[in-house]
């Protein structure tokens, strides 16, 4: 009885604390997330240890993982994933920052340049892949024809085992450098102009100002670029599949393409083991780098 008789003010206060922001707002999104994302992720840690045909499951222990690391083509895919992730990420940081510095300086055609650098981001990976497959054709492709006009013999790009992975990485950078550039432009815009003026008064040259002002202050943008491009690069599948399908042989395979190949071949357990390996690789690289980058930022 005593609880029922409360002052109107108290009721309003209790309502506002308890239910203006109801927890059930999490439910619809949470339901999708749990059923279609979390549940399969947890299940993968079981199915990775099985021989699996979607109907029948047979527990086989570590067999899939042993296969994964003993078959040379699967091991190549494992190593290539790191190479691809770090090469594309590094190139996007360097080129993205260079382009951003260029595109925030005074020069003609700045608006045009910004749009043109960004546009490939919006084209589908499969479209870009097919286009570059033609452009990088060893004999008739535009790239090698232009190079030979300059007296250079171009490599066989996507069809050369030595070059295939790097060629795909090159296309990836071409397609993705626009995002890195934009992130850096936003980061550069947040640096107060006074710092550069003060540095100028103190007699610092362009390079010195870049080293001591731009580089440290653009750090949040660098962190974003590194993390985004690593997450994308380590998981990368569509561009590789559109250009080389992991070939020639299996020289440009990555974990994500191994997962697809094993899935196509009907080795669902092995494919899922690949997924677990990819999960571990991505978390083992991204999580420490993310904490490292964020910690330094706080210290500053």
């Amino acid at each position, binding site marked *: 009885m005593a609880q029922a008789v409360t002052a109107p003010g108290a009721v309003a206060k209790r309502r506002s604390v308890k239910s203006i922001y109801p927890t059930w707002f*999490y439910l619809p999104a949470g339901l999708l*997330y749990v059923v279609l994302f979390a549940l399969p992720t947890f299940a993968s840690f079981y199915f990775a240890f099985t021989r699996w045909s979607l109907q029948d499951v047979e527990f086989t222990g570590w067999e899939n993982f042993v296969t994964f690391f003993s078959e040379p083509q699967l091991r190549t895919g494992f190593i290539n994933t790191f190479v691809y992730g770090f090469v594309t990420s590094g190139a996007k940081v360097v080129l993205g920052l260079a382009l951003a510095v260029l595109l925030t300086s005074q020069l*003609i055609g700045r608006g045009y340049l910004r749009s043109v650098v960004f546009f490939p981001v919006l084209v589908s990976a499969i479209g870009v892949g097919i286009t570059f497959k*033609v452009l990088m054709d060893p004999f008739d492709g*535009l790239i090698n024809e232009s190079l030979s006009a300059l007296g250079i013999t171009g490599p066989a790009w996507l069809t050369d085992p030595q070059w295939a992975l790097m060629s795909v990485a090159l296309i990836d950078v071409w397609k993705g450098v626009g995002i890195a550039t934009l*992130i850096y432009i936003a980061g550069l815009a947040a640096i107060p102009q006074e710092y550069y003026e003060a540095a100028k008064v103190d007699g610092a040259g362009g390079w010195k100002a870049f080293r001591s002002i731009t580089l440290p202050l653009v750090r949040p943008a660098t962190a974003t670029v590194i993390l985004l491009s690593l997450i994308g690069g380590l998981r990368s599948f569509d561009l590789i599949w559109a250009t080389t399908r992991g070939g020639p042989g299996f020289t440009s395979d990555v974990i994500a393409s191994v997962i697809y190949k094993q899935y196509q071949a009907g080795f669902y357990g092995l494919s899922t083991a690949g997924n677990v390996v990819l999960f571990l690789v991505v978390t083992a690289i991204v999580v420490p780098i993310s904490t490292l980058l964020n910690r330094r930022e706080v210290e500053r």
Partner: protein
Amino acid sequence: MRNRPREIVLGTVAILASVVVFIVPFVFIFLTAAKTPAEAAEFGFSLPTEWAIWDNLTTVLTVRNNLIVRAFVNSTVITVLSVALMVVLAAMVGYVLQRRRSRWNHVVNFFVLAGLIVPPAVVPTIWVMQGLGLFKTIPGMILIEATFGLSFCILLFRAFVSTIPKELDEAAWIDGAGPLRVFFSVVVPLLRPVMVTVVVVQAVNVFNDFTGPLYFLPGDDNATVQLTLYNFQSQTMSQWNLLFMDILLITIPPLVMYIFFNRQIVAGMTSGAVKG
């Protein structure tokens, strides 16, 4: 005085380089799409001796019982519905997550970040979808795209909700509006700028998605535009003109999006760059 020689020289060099690196590939797509099959197979960067752009267009659109037209319909349906779903659900989460400080926050934040980093487990997802009767269906694909896009949207919404004064929702609350009413008639209209960003960025992502449909929507019946390109590549290998016409066609929707929503796309892609 504004255009000093250095700016002009630097700008000109940059423009020339950009033409070689970025414009030439797109012109190449267009030129190849306008050539006859024999000429397209030469891979040359030249004007077509015979313009076949109209022929190629009609051939591509009608090949295999209008497959591409149907694929465009499928892709549009999937894009529109999945983006609508993820925007509404993510806005609800981002709003409560920002407004309410509770012990749930850590848990929810953790799962949001996990959703951004963790690669989806492919075959187990197919297994779950088969159990629900969603595998190889358009509704299934819509739900998958919505789920995979949630985390990114939640982060953007959470950041934006913090710029809306809390007093606004509290005023509506004291006037007697329920939580749904407060959210949909007070908060959602104020979310408009970030809504546009999220919708445009995710629409381009879903429309361009290849891996998703490859795994979860195989087969010609429900093909999406990216899959037609992939299937074309394996089946009509000799007809490069048609392949490039297809590339040209499926590049137009994102291009149009970019022309109209340039600013929002840029805002979405660069969010978090300054704050880290």
